[in-house]
């Protein structure tokens, strides 16, 4: 017998019923050869390079999708952090470069383009500051551009000047996109220990240690893990971990196969496979649902952090076994707006910001896609960022903050972005201030864990 029906039907079910998909095929592209003092010439080079290298990405991804019958939801491009390549540009701001990126993304038909980014974890150059100051207008005047700023690493500590500035930048971005519920903030991430090969938005950029052009693939599949756990009859935690591992293994293998075939057809090096459980607003395709499948009444109940730690670890173990190219973030995402279970947990009063923060210490990424009241002061946003950066720096892991101070809205309201970005209920922040703390500036020194040499 050449066919094993149970294997085939399992795969078919994963795709059809459990929303298994390739979340993204992301082309990482170096723009280091585009530097030019004249910003117009620079923008032209950037546009031309992206269009020439990524012109076939969407078509090839479509071919692979129908060949294997696995949906590839997003096609994306990530470029070298623009602050680096635009450093020598003779221009007061870099909004025109964001527009060039947007135009290139539209020309090749990708869903997002990431890399309007700066790496300022230890300090900022004038070019870095110029990029960061350009972010609000850049995100307000483009559709597909995503921006990220790395403000901390375990090796460098936390650049608190940058943390303070990012609170202001997030406020301005929300203000400039107020008519669309502050959607600009949904495309802006503040990082600690940002990975250089992450295919997921909004934080994707093509790191300076990367080669000229690579294909990175982000796989998803919370729905598959959720179903696998729910099928177990009264399992203990060892059995749950084992099931997650096996499921993660299968998902990873699928992603690697697709990534390698896309790379081969495009004649581009295969980079990494990011096995992240990235939820979608679809019912069941939810990380919160997985945690609840382990026996929690609601995501956010006591025990949630432990459940998430088990999940994240088992996902990594299964993924690492399945592929030698696992990279990026690879773990579980807990974005509120993109996960129906998280939204329900917030609305039921089960999940608050403080619990989410604790959860970020044991999973990939961090406070993701959370809406807070529109009148939250910049210093409070910065303080939220500082807390999250501290978790990342001390635990030698990536953490991030993608937060939306929802313009004109308060607790009880929600913001609606549609599509994969979903809907975020506005969450309460602490009523106590952090203004003096954030105004101090300087750098939180690197922790003792960084002294490994």
């Amino acid at each position, binding site marked *: *017998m*050449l*066919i*094993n*029906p149970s*294997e*085939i*039907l*399992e*795969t*078919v079910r994963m795709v059809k019923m459990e929303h298994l998909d390739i979340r993204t095929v992301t082309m990482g592209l170096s723009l280091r050869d585009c530097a030019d003092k004249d910003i117009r010439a620079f923008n032209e080079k950037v546009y031309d390079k992206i269009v020439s290298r990524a012109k076939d990405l969407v078509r090839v991804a479509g071919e692979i999708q*129908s*060949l*294997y*019958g*696995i949906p590839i939801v997003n096609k994306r491009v990530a470029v070298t952090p623009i602050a680096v390549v635009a450093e020598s540009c003779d221009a007061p701001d870099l909004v025109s470069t964001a527009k060039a990126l947007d135009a290139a993304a539209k020309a090749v038909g990708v869903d997002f383009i990431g890399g309007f980014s700066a790496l300022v974890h230890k300090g900022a150059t004038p070019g870095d500051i110029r990029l960061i100051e350009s972010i609000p207008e850049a995100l307000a005047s483009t559709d597909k551009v995503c921006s990220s700023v790395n403000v901390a690493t375990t090796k460098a500590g936390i650049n608190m000047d940058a943390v303070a500035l990012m609170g202001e930048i997030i406020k301005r971005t929300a203000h400039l996109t107020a008519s669309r519920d502050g959607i600009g903030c949904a495309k802006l991430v503040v990082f600690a220990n940002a990975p250089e090969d992450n295919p997921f938005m909004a934080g994707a950029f093509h790191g300076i240690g990367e080669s000229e052009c690579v294909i990175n693939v982000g796989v998803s599949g919370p729905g598959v893990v959720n179903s696998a756990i729910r099928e177990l009859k009264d399992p203990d935690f060892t059995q749950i971990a084992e099931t997650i591992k096996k499921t993660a293994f*299968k998902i990873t*293998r*699928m992603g*690697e*196969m697709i990534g390698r*075939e896309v790379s081969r057809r495009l004649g581009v090096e295969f980079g990494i496979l990011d096995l992240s459980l990235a939820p979608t607003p679809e019912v069941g395709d939810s990380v919160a649902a997985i945690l609840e499948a382990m026996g929690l009444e609601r995501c956010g109940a006591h025990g949630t952090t432990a459940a998430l730690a088990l999940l994240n670890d088992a996902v990594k173990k299964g993924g690492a076994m399945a592929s030698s190219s696992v990279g990026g973030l690879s773990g579980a995402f807990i974005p509120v707006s993109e996960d129906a279970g998280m939204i329900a947990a917030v609305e039921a009063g089960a999940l608050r910001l403080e619990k989410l923060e604790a959860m970020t210490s044991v999973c990939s990424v961090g406070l993701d896609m959370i809406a807070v009241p529109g009148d939250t002061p910049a210093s409070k946003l910065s303080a939220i960022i500082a807390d999250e950066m501290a978790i990342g720096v001390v635990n030698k892991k990536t953490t991030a903050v993608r937060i939306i101070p929802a313009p004109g809205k308060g607790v009880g309201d929600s913001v609606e972005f549609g599509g994969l970005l979903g809907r975020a209920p506005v969450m309460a922040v602490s009523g106590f201030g952090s203004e003096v703390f954030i105004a101090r500036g300087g750098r939180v020194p690197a922790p003792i864990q960084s002294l490994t040499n």
Partner: protein
Amino acid sequence: MNSNRFIVTVIGCDRTGIVAKIATVMTDFNVNIVDISQTIMQTIFTMIMLVQAPKEGFDLAAFQAGMEGAAKELGVEVKVQHEDAFQYMHRI
């Protein structure tokens, strides 16, 4: 992707003529059935076929469209996927 073999899955209510209709489309595209398996899964009829497509001049998109058309007439769901999608996931 080394082979030109595909897995065809047919899922839906059992009725006469499913195999005949599906096989006709395959003949039209010069696609050879290598192995076939039928089961009833939770009262739903499922047929799985391993098929070999010709090495030269095979148009996957047209074949998939042909199968879609047949599926619509039969009131079932048909998927055509390269065999690697299953090999990679379940076998090392």
